[in-house]
Structures are given as structure tokens and as C-alpha cells.
């Protein structure tokens, strides 16, 4: 007999429907899987055989052909075990076909018949809902995550036997796993930062406008500590953003079992030896990279000068477009990458970067040249971080994250209000045209900007960058128009890479 079961294959950050078709007919015992299946899927034959027998079902000793359709889509991983087993049960008359009508099945089988967790449950549930299926059967461990999607009946099961009994209606579906305990991964708190109060306005501006931030300073002065606290002052994730982040983390396998919706903004700090594929995604089949894992959060590149040039260059498209397209063989995949970039670097090879620095001018030039390029062109804010003196360490305590976040949220709301009906969500994404049309820049502020443009020999991009940051400064002040004062602040925070004609070395 022929049986057909719906399941889903994770493709990029989405799930696509796949039909598992099983056909059993007379002939010598054989078990063939066709339909662009990778090794893990073909190994499913052994797991399914053992799991069926160990769960007390009969494994048909006839000629079995399984097809995974559509055949052009590459199927990867062990998540096809369970639908395969169900298809065989139906095809061998051990389960009625109507029990699995309008139902998608996904899960990995162990030889004992137990069901193991799979990645990407949220994406699968969303796919099932899009395909207008009524029910999704999947491992109980990830049921809570799938249950974030409304209008679909989520059945979490722990073994093949339990699945059969549940779909037959012998038992009520097993209960959802318990709410996970409030996990301890609280955001780092801004008030842990001591002795860096002077940097708070700059951080606030960066967070409020989503501006890329460059921290420069000697080693051990707190650049990383500050960067880690940025997610805590960014606005909380909206429901849609949280779903997006959860889906990505689930597909990447970053989520612990039974975890629900992600509530904190991601913070990713890849090591500087990372490859371009690791940073923006790649591999075969394409996997999301750090840029995608930092989607809606912060991507922190510590020791920027140590990153390989190709890796940094690969960040251009993600930074510009908010997504990255990966082409591998016949597959084309788009991963979302809208993140705030925070970079940190030593000012010179020795790291001191002040009067004590003994680096030769040539070394400094080389160091700066490693930093320069298209990436620095997208840095909106530069702040120098210095070792705080001991009394500042004792006395200066940064404000609480919640206090700063309140101001940031208010500023973001102004931006959203202004950008109503546009795809952009924060000032950092504004084009110069939008700034002109919506920015409400006072003529006096524009005049000041013109003065700065001549004085600092800014590039056109540098000009726009200052204006963007100035708009955010005004938003933080609760000011509808951009005043000269705001431009001044933005100018003092600017990342200025315009070299003197003879920046001699």
C-alpha cells in the first residue's frame, strides 16, 4: 500500500513542506530511500527498522520504497525518522491513514523507539500553519517552542508508541512540558560599569538610533564590558522580533530544551579567527552565520584589526541591506542580518595609543590600514575608552540599564512615529533623502553641518552619518527638530577617517 505523510525540511531560516511517500509491495525484502536525501536521512532506515521492532510493531519484510518530495529540495538531518516510521506504519496497515490526515510529523528516532528533539521547531510550526495543517506532531522537548504559533494543534510525544496511541485517540495528548524556570541569563547590568560615566551619552545615542559603534582604547579598559551591556539598554524585543530571534536560534541549535520565547536581544561576539562563511553564513547546506545569529541584537567584533580582511569585507552586504544572500550550488538562501555593529580595537599595535606609545609611525599606519576600509565607513560613532583612574572607579557608577533603556525606548518611539509607513525602524537606517524629507533639520543646524563639512573635509557619507546621529540626539532630547546643538554632539562623536593629506608615516 501507499502512504503519504507531511513533514518539514528547514531551509535557511524557513521550513518547507516535504512529503514522505512510502510504498510497500511484493518482492525481495529491500528498503530504498530516494529524493535527494543526505547520509543522515539514508541512515534513518536502520533507526526506523530498530525503533519499529523495539516499539512492538512489525517491520514489513517486503520491498519498501520511500520517496521524499519535492525531489529537488535537499533533505538533511535525522528529523525525517519519525515521519518515515509513521508512513511505514500506515503503508503496512498498522495505522489508519485518516488518523494522520491534516497532520505533519517531525522528529528523530532512537533505536528504542524514543523520540529525540530536533532543531527549528518554531520554523516548522510556522510552516505547518502556512500549509494550513491542523496538527503538528513533534518531540515533546520542543513542543513549547512550537506552541508559540497560534491556530495549530501541537502534539508533543516522547516515543513512537505514544505517537500511535495519541493519534489513534487511545490516549489524550501528553501535557506540554513545564514552563522552564526563569533562566539565569539575565542581561548584564549597565550599572556594573564603573568609571566610564563620560561614555554613557554616546552609548545612549548608539542604542537609541541603532548606530554602529566603534570603541577604541588600550586593552583591559572595559571595551568588551561596555559592549556586553548594550543589549540591556536596547529596547525590548517586540513579539515579531522575538519570534524571529527564536526561530533563528532554534534552527542554529542554540536553544536549550523546553525553552520558550527568546526575550533578550542576542549578543554575539565571534572570535577574530572567524571565516567569512562563519560570519555571514555559508557551508553546504548553507547555515546561518554570526551576523544572522545577531539579528535584532548586537554583533560585537573585538580586536577588529585582527579579523581577516575577507571576513570583514563580507559584512558589507549584511550591513547595507539587513540581509545576506548565500549561493551554494543550486541553492540560494537569504538570511536576515539586521544587527547593530559594535567594534573594538587597540589604537596602535602596542595598544597604549597615547604619549607613552612607542610604536613606529609605519606600524601605526599599517595597523590603521588594517582597520580602514568599507567597514569603518559604516561606523557612526567613535568613542575612546581609557583606563579610569582609581577614584573614578570608586565613585562613578553608571546609571541602571532600566533608566537608560526608558530614554532609549522613548527615542525609538519618536523614530517609529516619524517613520510610520516606511520599512525603516530607526535612524541608523535612514538614507540622506529620508533625512532631508523627514529629518526636520533647522537651517542653522544645516549651516553648522556645512561648516563642519568644510573644516573636517568630510565625505558625503560622513556628512550623512553626522546628520543621522544628530537626529537621534534630538530624539533623545525629545526634540522634534534638529538644532545646532545636536549636530555639535554628533560631530564630537563622529568617526573621522578623513586622513590629512600627508598623515605622515
Amino acid at each position, binding site marked *: 500500500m501507499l502512504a503519504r505523510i507531511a513533514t518539514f525540511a528547514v531551509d535557511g531560516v524557513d521550513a518547507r513542506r516535504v512529503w514522505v511517500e512510502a510504498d510497500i509491495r511484493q518482492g525481495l525484502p529491500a528498503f530504498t530511500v530516494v529524493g535527494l536525501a543526505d547520509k543522515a536521512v539514508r541512515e534513518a532506515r536502520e533507526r526506523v527498522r530498530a525503533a519499529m521492532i523495539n516499539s512492538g510493531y512489525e517491520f514489513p519484510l517486503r520491498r519498501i520504497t520511500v520517496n521524499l518530495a519535492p525531489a529537488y529540495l535537499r533533505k538533511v538531518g535525522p528529523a525525517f525518522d519519525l515521519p518515515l516510521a509513521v508512513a511505514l506504519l500506515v503503508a503496512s496497515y498498522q495505522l489508519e491513514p485518516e488518523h494522520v490526515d491534516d497532520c505533519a510529523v517531525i522528529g528523530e528516532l532512537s533505536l528504542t523507539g524514543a523520540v529525540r528533539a530536533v532543531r527549528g521547531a518554531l520554523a516548522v510550526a510556522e510552516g505547518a500553519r502556512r500549509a494550513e495543517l491542523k496538527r503538528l506532531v513533534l518531540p515533546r522537548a520542543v513542543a513549547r517552542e512550537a506552541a508559540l504559533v497560534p491556530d495549530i494543534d501541537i502534539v508533543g510525544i516522547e516515543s513512537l508508541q505514544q505517537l500511535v496511541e495519541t493519534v489513534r485517540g487511545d490516549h489524550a495528548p501528553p501535557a506540554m512540558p513545564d514552563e522552564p524556570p526563569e533562566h539565569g541569563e539575565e542581561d548584564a547590568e549597565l550599572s556594573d560599569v564603573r568609571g566610564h560615566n563620560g561614555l554613557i551619552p554616546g552609548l545612549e545615542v548608539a542604542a537609541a538610533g541603532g548606530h554602529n559603534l566603534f570603541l577604541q582604547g588600550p586593552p583591559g579598559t572595559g571595551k568588551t564590558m561596555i559592549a556586553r551591556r548594550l543589549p540591556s539598554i536596547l529596547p525590548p524585543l517586540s513579539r515579531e522580533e522575538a519570534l524571529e530571534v527564536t526561530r533563528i536560534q532554534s534552527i542554529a541549535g542554540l536553544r536549550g530544551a523546553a525553552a520558550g520565547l527568546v526575550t533578550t536581544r542576542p549578543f554575539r561576539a565571534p572570535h577574530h579567527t572567524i571565516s567569512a562563511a562563519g560570519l555571514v553564513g555559508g557551508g553546504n547546506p548553507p547555515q546561518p552565520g554570526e551576523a544572522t545569529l545577531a539579528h535584532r541584537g548586537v554583533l560585537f567584533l573585538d580586536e577588529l584589526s585582527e579579523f581577516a580582511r575577507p571576513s570583514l569585507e563580507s559584512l558589507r552586504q549584511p550591513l547595507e541591506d539587513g540581509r545576506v544572500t548565500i549561493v551554494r550550488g543550486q541553492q540560494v538562501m537569504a538570511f536576515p542580518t539586521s544587527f547593530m555593529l559594535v567594534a573594538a580595537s587597540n589604537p596602535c599595535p602596542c595598544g597604549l595609543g597615547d604619549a607613552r606609545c612607542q610604536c613606529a609611525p609605519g606600524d601605526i599606519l599599517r595597523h590603521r590600514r588594517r582597520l580602514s576600509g568599507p567597514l569603518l565607513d559604516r561606523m557612526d560613532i567613535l*568613542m*575612546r575608552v581609557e583606563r579610569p583612574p582609581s577614584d573614578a572607579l570608586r565613585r562613578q557608577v553608571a546609571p541602571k540599564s532600566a533608566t537608560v533603556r526608558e530614554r532609549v525606548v522613548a527615542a525609538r518611539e519618536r523614530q517609529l512615529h516619524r517613520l510610520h509607513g516606511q520599512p525603516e525602524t530607526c535612524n541608523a537606517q535612514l538614507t540622506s533623502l529620508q533625512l532631508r524629507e523627514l529629518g526636520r533639520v533647522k537651517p542653522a543646524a544645516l549651516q553648522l553641518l556645512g561648516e563642519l563639512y568644510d573644516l573636517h573635509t568630510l565625505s558625503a557619507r560622513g556628512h550623512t552619518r553626522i546628520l543621522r546621529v544628530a537626529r537621534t540626539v534630538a530624539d533623545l532630547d525629545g526634540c522634534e527638530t534638529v538644532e545646532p546643538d545636536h549636530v555639535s554632539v554628533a560631530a564630537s562623536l563622529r568617526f573621522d577617517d578623513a586622513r590629512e593629506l600627508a598623515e*605622515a608615516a
Partner: protein
Amino acid sequence: MSACDDCLRRTDLIAAMSGHLQVEFKRRSAPGNVLALPDEILLEIADAPAVRTRYAAFDPHAARARATEVALTVICRCDSAYPTRLSDLEDPPAVIHVLGDPSTLQHEDALAVVGARRASSYGLEVARALGRALSAAGVTVVSGLALGVDSAAHAGALKAKGPTIGVLAGSAHVAYPARGWLLHQAVAQRGAVISELPPGAACQRWCFIARNRIIAALGAATIVVQATRNSGSLTTADFAAELGRAVGAVPGLVTSSLSAGTHGLIQQGAPLIRNPADALELLANITGRQYKAQPPAPQLTKKLRQLLEAIEAGKGTLGELATTPADARLALVALDELERLGLIRRGFGGRWERTAGVRS
């Protein structure tokens, strides 16, 4: 403006025996002893048939054509357009090759600003400020287009309106060092880039020393910004002293080897150059002319003055300049004001630094 056949021939001879001269320089120690020698003796020194043949078969028209091809003007010491200052040398270059405007060379108000190639950010800043202020006062800045102080002085001069002269050791139309081609171009456009050697001549080590004598001669005085004890810039100062021209020196940290040369000069009685006003005063004493002073120091509010004083005291980051977020917010505005007044600049590694330009 032209060059006579004899002078061109001599220049060609020097270019042809450039390698022999390197040896001779070592033997006779002072360049004047070599470059002042007549052609016949130079030919004997070379003692090579190839040089003699080339000397005998020299074609002045071809030499002129070669120079014109790369847009160089040739002026010999017999010509009236030859800079009078260069004639003070006991071994003036027979011909100078000029890229740019030759009339720049006649300016009376010219100061040489030279210094270390591996200068510190302080040295670069001072050189830049000197170049800019001198240029703004209408003084021609003469230097060697080398990395470090030289380039910074030229770049500073280009920021204001005055002309500037770059003296090269090799051909005037080829940027040296190559990475300074942008500056080379800009200097040739604003003033002139000159050299003693004709296009295509091989550049030996002695050429750089010989170049320094031209720098020293073209400036009414020479200012050394940073120099180690054995710096080539000190030879420029020596040449200037031999010519009876004044030599000024910019002080530096006593702990830095880059100050050893300049402090040595000061010890020997060179006037102290702390700012452009000192340099202009030095020049005024020589030429007897008045140079328009610096733009008056702007009146600062108390807040700006305090901030400026903090930066002068070596504080250069927001963390060092403000203790509360509110303070920092105000400081950001004030910093931009100070920067626009030209009193501070965002320097090395993102720190704010006091500029060497305007005094408050």
C-alpha cells in the same frame, strides 16, 4: 628662463658620475668640497671612459627636450631667473629643474621647516601648525617632501593660502617617497617642486645631503622640528649656519630621542620656536618686514576655557573629561566648539589633543 649648454653639461656630468661621487663624498666628508669642483677635476675623479665619452658627446638640446617632456622648467645659474638665495652657496647647483611655478623660488619671505621622518604625533602636529600659520602669513614654506615632519609642514602650508616649495634629491617630476604622490602633486600645483638632478638620474645617498643644502639656502632661516642626534635634518641646520642663516629649533620632551638633535641646537644658541609667532618673529628680524600676526585668540567662555585647560593637561577622552552622563553631554557640545575654533583636534586613537596652532 632657460639654461645654458655648459651648465646643462655639468648637471649631466654629475648625474652620470653619481655613483663615483658617493665614494668621493665619503673621502672628502663635506659636499661643498666635491660639488664646487670644476668639471675637469670631476672627470679625473670619475676616471671612467664612459663618463668622458658621455661628457664629450653631450647634446644640450636633447637634455632640454627630456626636461620639457616631463613638464620641468630648467634654470641655470647664469640665468636671471635663478634664485639669488641659491647663489649664496659656494657650490650652487648648476641647473635647477622646476616642476610648478619658478617665480615661487624668488620669494624673499621663505622659511625652511625640516625634521625627522619618524616623527611623533607631537612633531607632526607642530610641523603642521607651523606650516599652516606661516603660509597664512604669506611666508613660503620650504621643505624636503620626506615623510614625517617635512610632509606635515607642506600639508599644513597647503591648508592656508601661501605657496610652498619641495626640494627633492632625485628627479623633480617623480614623487619620492612614492606614497606621497598626492602631496607631491599638490605642492607642485601650489608652488614648486625642484631638484638639482635631471630627470632619470640615479639617486644616491649623497643626493639627499646635497638636497639639504638647497633647502637651507632657499629659506631665510631654517626651523628644525624634531631630530635625533644623527638626524639628516641637522645637516640642513649646519648648511644654514654655514650660509650665515638663522636656525631655530622646536623643543620637545627631554626623555625622547627625537628631541636630542633640536635640544642640541638650542644649547648651541638656536632661538627657541614654541609657536608660529616665534617663527615669524625670527623671520621678521632677518628680513626687517612685518608679518601679519596670528588671528587674535578667541574669547572663550569659562566652561570652554576649563575644558581646554583639561585637554592641555593631557585629558583627552570623554571618560577623563566628564564625571557624570550629564556633564559628558555638555562636554560633547563644547568639544565640537573648541574643535571648530581650531583649538583642539581629534588625534591619534580618537583622543582629543590640543592643536599647536592658535594660542589662547
